[in-house]
């Protein structure tokens, strides 16, 4: 099996009768490897199309399982997160150990494929030898074999297999080469697994690497554990080893929970004994493994000719140059940002128009009534509210996939790191936060590029503070209506200045918010920026497209349904109790007049005005309107009356909805936009019962400040739920942002009224 790159373009589902294969218990094959070794590419090539993604319970780690058939055997292929080692220190990292050892109650896989970057063999053997110690049938897959050939490196595959005692297969995943031999190696390994000699041989092999003193300690610890745990709880030596080698790691904690807290004292005694022999934990592990790896590599790898990383060096000299590199990085980021803004708007506009057209068609076939309202304004509009996000998500992930795949993403993070460190974050947070200026939904999804869990959560929580495009209509309406159109200091337009200030307000406030989150809910070791910068390579179209498709689809399926449901619910809250028959009669009459050969414009206008007035009354009496009245005492200190309250409550699905809601409340209908002079006039003319104006400059600014901070965007909250895999964080976001918004609006109004 240790043949050089076996040429085959074989599809994984070659041969075999799927029906017969389906009946047997599928063979479970797990895929593990360092980041950037081509693991996802190999998974996609091996798994075919039937891939299920989800989350492991309780953690943010994505679970990817593919079902397929190899040579007649049905296979369940499990993708594990990319990792440099099996030393878990968090529930997220523990997932891998749980799956491989079956200590979460699952059955461990039948075979493990450990995928390596053949050009970084020394480093990759670190993980491979750890995996070997689990004791499962393991296959070493040397990926990027094409690059090995191109680099003029020769690797003695048979020798490597001999040294490790593992089958070794070479692949070029992105060319789908070597997949056949990998598949037969897996099946071969299974058929031979009943051979006791092999099992024993595997065991002695894998124990040869670490000093025998370590294994002696494992043995005595196992003895102690056996005495102190329930009879049926037999612990794999691998887990005991991990608990010994990773002080304060997740396995240590797991074993303490399973047996007793005294286990820690046992571990400390073991570590002290090792230390007296000059074997310091945890250093002993890395030293032994790297010593062994260097030895193996020096025996099996021969290098001639120059190395591909020279290309990376030359590119890095420019792309991460202190001045040019930075300028290039800024330009790339701005280019991405403006491209998303330019292209997604017409695309979203197109989707909105299409949805509108569908709604019109449906309207045309039905007469006005509650059912038509539900279908057009509830259901169809709800679908629209999900689909409008797709262009932005697809575009952003197109760029992310391109940048990640060619190796630039890590460099951009490297250059932006210092900047983000001022907020206690790392360079990886830059792109997600920048995208949030267009829209927080793709921005929050983009936090998947952040490996550190705490960094990722803090970024998710502050992302909605970045001023998204949905806030602009609110700002434009308020500024255009109430901020005087004059110059400051002779040349600075006041309105533009206010708009600019509002746009960056959230960003400024996000810095202390991030700081506080870091000191409270996400305390612990400071965020790190210890990471590998992968070699530059050409992005692979199929990897990129796959990523774009997968993220768009996961949004529609996992977030879309909830966003849709909420949109329908909010529509219902604004429509129940339902409008009186009088409203529908008016609508029917208007539609009949409009359909006439020569429409009586004056009559239509008169009826429309009456309808708008009635709709305003209907909204006031609806659940939503009552909620507006109900919140009035709370919003009074902000200088608002119930009408602004309704606007804010109604904008829960999305901030820009407030404009249309004001249109309804002020009897202008829903088809107004932020530049509508009628709406602006109505807002200026709005009066409290005592005759004083509803909107003053301080009120208008307090409304803007509120919208700068508030979480009135159901889609954002749903995506936070999806990305954090918990309801706690969307609720937390809503509460803290609404609190911040109220406080900001309160201070603005009170201070503004004093001036």
């Amino acid at each position, binding site marked *: 099996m240790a043949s050089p790159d076996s040429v085959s373009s074989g599809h994984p589902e070659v041969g075999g009768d799927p029906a017969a294969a389906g009946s047997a218990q599928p063979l479970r094959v797990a895929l593990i490897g360092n980041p950037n070794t081509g693991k996802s590419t190999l998974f996609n090539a091996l798994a075919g199309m039937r891939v299920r993604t989800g989350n492991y319970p309780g953690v943010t780690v994505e679970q990817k399982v593919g079902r397929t058939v190899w040579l007649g055997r049905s296979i369940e292929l499990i993708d594990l997160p990319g990792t*440099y*080692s099996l*030393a878990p*220190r968090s529930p997220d990292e523990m997932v891998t150990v749980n799956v491989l050892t079956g200590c979460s109650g699952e059955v461990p896989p039948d075979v493990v494929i450990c995928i390596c970057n053949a*050009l*970084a*063999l*020394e*480093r990759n053997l*670190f993980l491979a030898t750890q995996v070997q110690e689990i004791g499962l049938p393991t296959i070493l897959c040397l990926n990027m074999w094409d690059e090995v050939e191109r680099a003029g*490196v020769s*690797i003695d595959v048979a020798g490597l297999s001999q040294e490790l005692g593992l089958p070794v297969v070479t692949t070029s995943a992105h060319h789908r080469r070597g997949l056949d031999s990998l598949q037969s190696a897996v099946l071969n390994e299974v058929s031979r697994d009943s051979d006791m000699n092999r099992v024993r041989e595997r065991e002695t092999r894998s124990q040869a690497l670490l000093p025998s003193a370590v294994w002696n300690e494992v043995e005595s610890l196992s003895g102690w554990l056996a005495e102190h745990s329930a009879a049926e709880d037999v612990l794999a030596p691998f887990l005991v080893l991990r608990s010994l080698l*990773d*002080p*304060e790691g997740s396995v240590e904690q797991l074993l303490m929970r399973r047996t007793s807290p005294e286990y820690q004292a046992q571990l400390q005694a073991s570590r002290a004994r090792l230390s007296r022999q000059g074997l310091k934990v*945890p*250093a002993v*592990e*890395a*030293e032994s493994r*790297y010593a062994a*790896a*260097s*030895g193996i*590599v*020096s025996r099996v*790898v021969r*290098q001639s000719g120059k*190395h*591909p*990383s020279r290309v*990376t060096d030359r590119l*890095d*000299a420019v792309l*991460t*140059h*202190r*001045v040019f*590199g*930075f300028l290039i990085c800024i330009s790339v980021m701005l280019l991405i940002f403006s491209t998303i803004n330019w292209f997604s708007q017409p695309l979203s506009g197109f989707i909105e128009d299409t949805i509108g057209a569908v709604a019109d068609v449906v309207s045309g076939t039905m007469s006005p009534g509650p059912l038509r309202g539900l279908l057009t304004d509830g259901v169809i509009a709800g679908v629209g509210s999900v689909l409008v996000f797709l262009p932005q998500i697809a575009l952003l992930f197109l760029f992310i996939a391109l940048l990640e795949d060619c190796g630039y993403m*890590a460099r951009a993070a*490297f*250059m932006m*790191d*210092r*900047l983000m*460190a001022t907020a206690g974050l790392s360079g990886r947070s830059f792109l997600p936060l920048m995208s949030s200026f267009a829209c927080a939904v793709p921005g929050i999804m983009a936090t998947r590029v952040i490996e550190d869990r705490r960094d990722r959560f803090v970024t998710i929580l502050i992302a909605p503070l970045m001023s998204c495009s949905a806030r602009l209509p609110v700002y434009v309406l308020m500024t255009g209506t109430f901020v005087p159109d004059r110059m400051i200091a002779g040349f600075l337009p006041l309105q533009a200045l206010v708009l600019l200030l509002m746009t960056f307000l959230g960003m400024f406030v996000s810095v202390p918010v991030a700081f506080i989150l870091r000191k409270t809910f996400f305390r612990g*070791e*400071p965020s*790190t*920026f*210890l*990471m*590998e*910068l*992968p*070699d530059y390579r050409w992005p692979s179209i199929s990897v990129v497209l796959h990523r774009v498709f997968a993220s768009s689809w996961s949004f529609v399926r996992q977030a879309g349904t909830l966003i849709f449901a909420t949109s329908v619910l909010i529509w219902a809250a604004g429509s129940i109790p339902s409008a009186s028959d009088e409203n529908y009669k008016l609508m029917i009459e208007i539609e009949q007049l409009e359909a006439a050969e020569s429409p009586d414009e004056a009559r239509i206008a008169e009826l429309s005005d009456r309808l708008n007035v009635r709709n305003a009354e209907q909204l006031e009496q609806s659940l939503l309107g009552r909620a507006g009245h109900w919140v009035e005492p709370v919003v009074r200190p902000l200088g608002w009356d119930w009408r602004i309250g309704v606007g804010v409550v109604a904008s829960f699905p999305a901030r820009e909805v407030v404009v249309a809601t004001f249109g309804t409340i002020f009897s202008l209908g829903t088809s107004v936009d932020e530049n509508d002079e009628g709406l602006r006039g109505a807002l200026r003319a709005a009066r409290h019962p005592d005759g004083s104006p509803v909107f003053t400059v301080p009120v208008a600014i307090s409304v803007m400040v509120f919208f700068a901070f508030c979480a009135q965007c159901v889609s954002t909250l749903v995506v936070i739920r999806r990305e954090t895999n918990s309801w706690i964080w969307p609720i937390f976001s809503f509460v803290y942002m609404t609190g911040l918004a109220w406080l900001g609006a309160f201070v603005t109004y009170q201070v503004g009224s004093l001036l």
Partner: protein
Amino acid sequence: MQLAELKPGMSGVVTSVSGSGRISSRLMELGMVPGAIVDVLRKAPFGDPVQYRVRGALISMRAAEAACVTVSALAGVASATSLVAGSSLVAG
């Protein structure tokens, strides 16, 4: 001396990795074990983090992380380290 004291263009041999937390474990997993050669390649635009090469791989670290690593400086530039062959051998 500390790794962070090496200037871009310089190289060193790791003599020890201190601390027992996540950072030092991670450093060792990535190959920063005593005897490994580290080349300092370049600093980020704002001076931190710094790009290093160890065992043929490019690694970026903040000054705070590099502080865990002590090295002894190698004379001259030793960036001809090979990627695949054991780079704990002194590069020529």
